[in-house]
């Protein structure tokens, strides 16, 4: 039934046989069809737009550098001065929170250097008045998400994996969306992001490739000893001359007496190194060594939502 006839029909019913001119031209049928199609398209477009909007930096704040009370430069402090992450983020290995440094941490150095810098006025104010420096949160998860830093860094997820090259950020921004799909992407296949725990704080870590292999050795699983302590990895070929360094670190655990006291039999044999030339190989090796839970476990809702 087209629109035109429908109206005419209706008119006839209401007004009997009285003649009334058609209100709509025949061309309005085409218009009606087009408008139906257009409506559909608009709905789809709206959906797509909202979907894109939801993932856009406008919503996720990905890549945005909010105004901070002090324009703190991670680039300067990490790359320039070589501060280790944990100098400020002290509890990243112990707790769910990595920790935001207290004013005292800033003052440790800035009582000595740049003591008159205008930029650091809020820090000095904070120190003098006892009021916190009101940092704007850059990595902000929703309140119904419970994220734990310590388990990630203990199991081979490096800082840069989520936070990006912080050492190259003059002003802090979120490298990633921190949206659920992004989390799940890794929880479904952690192997693609695992790295040796010795490289957690290495901002410049790159996945192994044929031109930059990684060698790892393992002393086997020891219950009660953190898995990270059983794996030793190096980017220097341990069979070449530089291997001494890597090997010297090994017999430390448990040897309380002098090195000379250790009976010859207890000196561990030289570790066997495996060479990895791709992230996939290394990731799956570490997945087993670090006893990473299965994707089934890692994607269970209660892991992050309680």
């Amino acid at each position, binding site marked *: 039934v087209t629109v035109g006839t429908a109206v005419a029909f209706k008119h006839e019913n209401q007004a009997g046989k009285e003649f009334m001119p058609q209100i709509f031209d025949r061309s309005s049928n085409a218009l009606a069809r087009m408008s139906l199609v257009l409506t559909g398209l608009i709905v789809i477009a709206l959906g797509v737009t909202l979907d894109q909007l939801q993932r856009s930096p406008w919503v996720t*704040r990905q890549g945005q550098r909010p105004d901070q009370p002090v324009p703190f430069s991670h680039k300067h402090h990490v790359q320039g001065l070589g501060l280790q992450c944990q100098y400020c983020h002290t509890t990243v290995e112990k707790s769910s929170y990595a920790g935001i440094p207290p004013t005292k941490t800033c003052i440790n150095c800035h009582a000595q250097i740049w003591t008159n810098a205008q930029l650091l006025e809020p820090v000095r104010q904070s120190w003098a008045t006892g009021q916190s420096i*009101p940092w704007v949160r850059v990595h902000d998860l929703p309140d*119904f998400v419970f994220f734990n830093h310590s388990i990630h860094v203990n199991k081979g997820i490096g800082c840069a994996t989520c936070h990006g090259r912080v050492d190259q950020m003059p002003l802090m921004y979120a490298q990633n969306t921190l949206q659920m799909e992004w989390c799940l992407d890794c929880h479904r296949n952690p192997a693609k992001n695992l790295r040796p725990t010795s490289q957690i704080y290495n901002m410049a870590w790159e996945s192994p490739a044929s031109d930059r292999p990684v060698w790892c050795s393992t002393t086997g699983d020891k219950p009660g000893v953190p898995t990270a302590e059983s794996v030793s990895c190096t980017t220097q070929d341990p069979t070449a001359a530089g291997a001494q360094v890597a090997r010297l670190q090994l017999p430390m655990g448990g040897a309380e007496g002098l090195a000379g006291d250790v009976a010859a039999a207890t000196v561990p044999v030289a570790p066997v190194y495996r060479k990895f030339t791709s992230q996939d190989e290394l990731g799956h090796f570490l997945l087993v060594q670090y006893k990473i839970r299965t994707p089934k476990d890692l994607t269970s809702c209660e892991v992050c939502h309680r």
Partner: protein
Amino acid sequence: MSGHISIDGKNESMNKAGNAVEHETKSAPTPMTLAEVRQELKGVKGKRFWRSVDELANTAEFQAAVEREFPSAAQEWVDPVSRRGFLKLMGASMALAGLAGCTKQPEETIYPYIKQPEDLVLGKPMYFATAHPFSTGGVPLLVKSDEFRPIKVDGNPEHAYNHGGSDPFSQGTLLDLYDPDRSQHVLFRGENREWAEFAEAFRLKVAATKDGTGVYFLSSTITSPTLARQWKAVQAAWPKAKLVQYDPALAGTFLAAGGPGVQYDLSAADVIVSLDADFLSGASYPGFHKLVRDYAERRKHPENGMNRLYAVESMTTTTGMKAEHRLGLRASEVPAFAAELAKAVGVAGVEPPAYAWTDQQQKFLAALVKDLKANVGKSAVLPGLYQDPSVAKLALAINSALGNVGKTVSATPDPAIPLPSDQLADIKSLVADLNSGKVDWLVILNANPIYTAPADLNFADAFNKANVVAHLASHLDETGQISHWNIPAAHYLESWSDVRAYDGTVSIVQPMIDPLYGGRTAHHVFQTLLNEPMLSPYDAVRETWKPVIKGDFETGWRKSLHDGWIANTAYDKTSKSAADAVFRGTVPVPASKDSLEIIFRPDPNVYDGRWSNVGWLQELPKPVTNLSWDNAAIVSGATLTKLGLDEDDIVELSVGGGRVKAPVIVAPGHPDNSVTVHLGYGREFAGRVGSGAGFNAYLIRNTWAPLYATGSLRKVEGKWGIAITKSHYQDHRGTEFGEKGAGNNSLEGDEALGPRGIIRYATLEEFKANPNFAHEGEGRETPQYDTSLFPNWAYNEANAWGLSIDMNSCTGCNACIVSCYAENNIAVVGKQQVRMGRNMQWLRIDTYFEGDLSAPRAHFQPMACQHCENAPCEQVCPVGATVHTPEGLNTMVYNRCVGTRYCSNNCPYKVRRFNFLLYSDYETESLKLMRNPDVSVRSRGVMEKCSYCVQRINEAKIQADKENRPIRDGEIVTACQQACPASAITFGNINDKQSRVTKQRAEQRTYQVIADINTRPRTTYVAEVLNLNQELESAPVEHTPAKG
């Protein structure tokens, strides 16, 4: 109880059920009329279970309630909002719902420390030992502190007294700390002042009197040895200054009067007799935590023998309901009954008043005496705290005559409280002094006499005759409103003090947080009058224990703070005191059988009113009656009928010149011609939560009868509108009522007993003859893996969480529920919402009464999410908001939930709770400090339920993974398990063959509830075993209610 053993009972009802089904095919089911039910009830033998009086009688209202998923009006928009307003709200919320997913998160600010405390790891809680200084004895605590905010209060697991157990009061004190209505400023006639101004004014005033004449202190019972020491110093310096202690819930009891401290060791008692001693339901009874633990310990392995509990009681309490044999007596009959018992077991000097005991009472006494004599040295008789002091003396004499002293009972010469006094006489003389103008300064310490003082004293009139009244209190309460000086009191979690536990062990009360509102303590007030007025309570407490702590003081002090007690301070149990089998004194004569007796008891939830503003405790359904948000005139069914009343009718109670209007409710088993009223309600200035709830029973409580009085009752017009949570969340199988079961009980009764067997128990003899009784005939627990449409999950990897509840140990004390409130950020919804059945407790304690209305037994069954492996709720959720985890948890994903409530509809256990409105308080600042940061605060439109404390599971999993080890058994403790003073709850990994929960599940008595529909619940129950005395076994059913 009949001679039938439970298996017979079951088969009988099953047979009847079979017949009924055949019959049912012929005619449509029709609800039975009340008369028909009565006809059916007549002459029926066998176990009968029911949960409320409505249910027993199967009233039309009850039938209607059964048909619904949620109780009446729970699903309807009944708030006074117009339809138009409702549509507007709907429109707005739909717009918000659509946009909520797309809006940006608000920008958040991080406020770091200036100097971070060295030992603080943000995100890791710390635990500190302290103690809750409760008037019946300190409760040693271990408090969880997040960023130095106390967020969870639990018993100290290493303390020999409570082993980690706590009680509803102690749990509730956390919300009391963060109560937004606490008094926040020092005020003088309504104007802001400083503490120093008060201290100066007070000190100068007292100095001007030279000897303290006219200076009066009115304090709640002093529990702190340091405070007692400070008072003695004040008294030495100002000999005419007077201290009056008045605690409405202790005045007139043997505890306040001092006397020897008596300790019971129920772990060695085979026969326990309660003479109106409600020692299983809460901390109101001194030594509750230890008593309930020892009691339960002797019931955990019936195969190794178990104790037997006799209860003689004047109102229905959980103690009586747990007892093997219970005798309901009117309160005034109890001393006479105790005297009869004393005489029968050979106590010298006792002359029981002549009284016409019924045959049944005589039979009970005879059997009791016989049993006690057969268990010489292995029994314990506990006197009621709210009984005439003669009962305590009689009980000690009975224990002495039975050779229990030195074995199950020890008496020490030390009084249980540091400054015993006759509180009623003292407050009387205070009022006399006030009226004669002798009182210049009245300093009230943590007491609220305007509200709690006995009615006959006219305290409010006398109060105005004091020149200056200073009031140290946590709230601007009834007394605070008319006092001149108001000094905010520091909470015990904010201040230094000390207290002795029931066993005498001294605990230091150490603060967890700086006073939120600059509160002060009684220590400060007394110290103001001493040589060093600025000496802090901390220094005062240290001074007290310097001579006691052995070795290097600093080391010993730190150890005491760390451990939570000072070593070697428990009462000496070996010391002999005057405990001979002789009774000196008189036994009061019972009141006439026709008179109406009114019994006053502190409330099981808000005590004497001090916790009126604690929403958790207000909303908590009271044991036995399941009443929340109110107190009531509690009577027996027969008395209700005799007086021509219905439940919820309003009556006017009068004692002496006092009158008060109260709603009536029935407590099954309550003695006839007797009314129990709970104190602590009817507050005018309690705060936003407690003001206006219930009625003020202090108005009819007088100095001449503080524990029970003879009074009268008359019906007045109207209905009160009480909120009772029982008979809520009925299963949706009302039409089956006529079909299944014997027709002599309710739907739930059938299910509790019949094919379903929600409650399964046996007598000790039955259990010994047939240890497998809990599974007899049914075999329903065998999971059927091939009948479900859904794929089965093996759960054989890693962990599989399970919970086991020992029905023999649970006494229904409610500590678990309050603990769950704190741990899981559960909202308080208010009375009107509770009336609609919208209360949010994740855990409830189902009370199944059994037997006659006038003499029932009850079975307490904690009921929370069962974490079914084959969960009906998950199968109907359209958005996957409730799903299973690989470890077998039925988990809720709040941010996915759209509020269809299908899951709740499909839950056979009715344990899901829905946020019909925005119940969580997102606004009040002080409450934000209290929340558990590891648990989401749920908003409107979200379903929630027990999570097995998944936040604790995940914390332990992360820790174990980091340390590369399996989770240890006992490493994860659920909040309910942690609080349980009876250790009735066990949680753990059922894949670990060595875990405690696996062992408990392997017990033959273990059964599952409603497992016949193949839900495969992870929560299991260990069936009860009752150690009945053969001579009394059939007594309760034969008991006839008093003739009206």
